[in-house]
């Protein structure tokens, strides 16, 4: 089970006080630049810069950050291997005809294509990590509100956000209680324990729902949910840093056009 959620890291990160829009533009801009680039260099550049920002500016623990990459990299390696083997080309290094109409091959073009996809994944991942590690959900709610997301959607999001942590806590307690009484010692036992965990979690969330209504009624609920009105001001240094980052990345995108690995 997650002991420390991404949200917890985001709440304490070093860039917490920077204006939310600047952070979102950094992340989204980086993703966009990764997508428009035609070479593997810009995604690599973006990944390096953002990783540096995450590790040194936001002061996220390097190990935690690396762990975030394990699953996506594993996926990326699998699919890149597929791309390299399946997509064809002229400059063939290795070839295996399995069936008359189907063959696996490694070519210069397929390696280039594969590495390009791989670095795009890395670049995109680091941009997503940058947003999720530096911008807590609570700040994003404010942005949503300013972007005129319908209030009912927003209220639901906020209630769900709050409830996730309460129910997660309860599930964790039930899970621990089961483990302490050897609930997961055998395969058969695990199935049984897991099903009762699900049942208990359902009942717990049902009860939380009823409590929520009662708590809201007790405080004169009238269809309104308060929201933090203010965001942090746009400061000079982060703004300059953002502009520099985006313009340099953009320059890299233009100048690296068509450059391939091999």
């Amino acid at each position: 089970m997650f002991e420390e959620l991404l949200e917890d890291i985001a709440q304490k990160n070093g860039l917490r006080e920077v204006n939310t829009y600047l952070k979102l533009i950094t992340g989204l801009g980086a993703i966009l630049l990764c997508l428009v680039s035609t070479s593997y260099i810009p995604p690599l550049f973006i990944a390096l810069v953002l990783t540096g920002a995450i590790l040194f500016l936001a002061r996220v623990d390097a190990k935690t950050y690396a762990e975030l990459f394990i699953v996506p990299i594993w996926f990326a390696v699998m699919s890149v291997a597929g791309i390299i083997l399946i997509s064809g080309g002229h400059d063939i290094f290795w070839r295996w005809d399995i069936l008359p109409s189907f063959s696996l091959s490694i070519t210069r073009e397929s390696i280039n294509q594969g590495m390009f996809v791989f670095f795009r994944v890395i670049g995109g991942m680091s941009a997503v990590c940058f947003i999720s590690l530096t911008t807590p959900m609570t700040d994003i709610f404010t942005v949503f509100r300013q972007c005129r997301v319908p209030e009912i959607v927003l209220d639901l999001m906020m209630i769900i956000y709050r409830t996730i942590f309460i129910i997660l806590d309860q599930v964790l307690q039930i899970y621990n209680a089961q483990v302490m009484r050897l609930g997961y010692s055998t395969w058969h036992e695990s199935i049984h324990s897991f099903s009762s965990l699900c049942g208990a979690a359902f009942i717990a969330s049902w009860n939380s729902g009823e409590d929520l209504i009662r708590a809201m009624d007790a405080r004169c609920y009238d269809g309104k949910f308060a929201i933090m009105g203010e965001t942090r001001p746009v400061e000079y240094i982060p703004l300059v840093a953002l502009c520099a980052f985006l313009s340099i990345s953009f320059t890299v995108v233009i100048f690296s056009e068509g450059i391939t690995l091999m």
Partner: protein
Amino acid sequence: MSSIILEARDIRYRYPRGMEAIGGISFHIRRREKIALVGPNGAGKSTLLSMFNGMIRPDSGIMFFDNQPIQYDNTSLRILRKRVGFVLQNPDRQIIAPTVYQDVAFGPTNLRYTENEVKNAVTLALQQVGLDGFERRPPHHLSSGEKKRVAIAGVLAMDPDMLVFDEPTSGLDPAGSEDIMELLDELNNEGKTVIISTHDVELAYPWADRAILMLKGEILREDIPEVAFGNPEFVRKAHLSIPTLLELHMELEKRGLPLQGKKPRTVLDMMHSIEMMFENTCCHIRPGMITVCNVDQESRDYLSMWLSRQPGISVGAMGTRAKQCAENSQIRLDFTYGVIDKCILKALLGEDSLIMTTESMVQRVNQRVEAYGKESGIHITVSLLEAVIFPDNRGPGGHI
């Protein structure tokens, strides 16, 4: 006698398909009273409390709030709930919003305050509970004591006349419990009627003006704490225990010791009774002096300087803001609860002490010490620390 704010007349309630939770209860609560509702689990305390703000409607009988029978239509309930703040036992069930600010702002927003009014209400409420600067924290990152304070702030932001707390100290450590009880005292001092339910007798005994003992949905006894908790028969029936001080007093009396004065509510009262027995030996020490510092006016530098000139002085802080101030100025606190009594005890030992507190509580220190002086005949000097730099080294001090 102050006016009655809440009255119940022969209230009965039965849970659907269940047993009778409340069986014919009548009582009244006066404005600015501190009431402790005490009883074992399942006595109907929480059910009764939920009737105060109309969450549960009694099957029969009438509840009066401010001399008006409680109406159960939506508009009247809204008005009632604005005036009766209810703090649940489990703060996790009360805190709805993703950040502290949003949660505290929930009530005021729904009361249609303007954005600025909401902001002011939130700031004030957070100040009252000592959580300024916590606005943007998500509730799941807070300790249980802090969560409790957020829950209280959420109710305070609506500026209710009456505060109802279901088990305010459950799940808190002893120091945290004392802090919350202090906060309740502070709120009561600001003019709010405070009702708590608890089974912590030791906590309720010195705090409450009146205690209501409940058992099986009925009122067993309703009286001042000395009487309500002093009857072994009732206490046993209600699955409670006699407060230690009261028990000690009773045991001493049984042994024929000539204890005078009223029954003790605090250690100070007990000390007084005991010292009265050995009248000749107690007063040979000149009592120490109590200095009161109003943290709203005093500059911190001056206070630190003053303290550095008084080595060995005991320092106590009363009230949330005073405690914060002490923390900010890195002043080590000897007392954080029951401060006045502890300082009087110190003074009786001939030692000086300083009480850091806020404007509204300064007068209370005076009253308490004066009341003690009248009762015991021992005069203890209370002086106000003033930011006038005195030329001589003796330190400042002026009688209030």
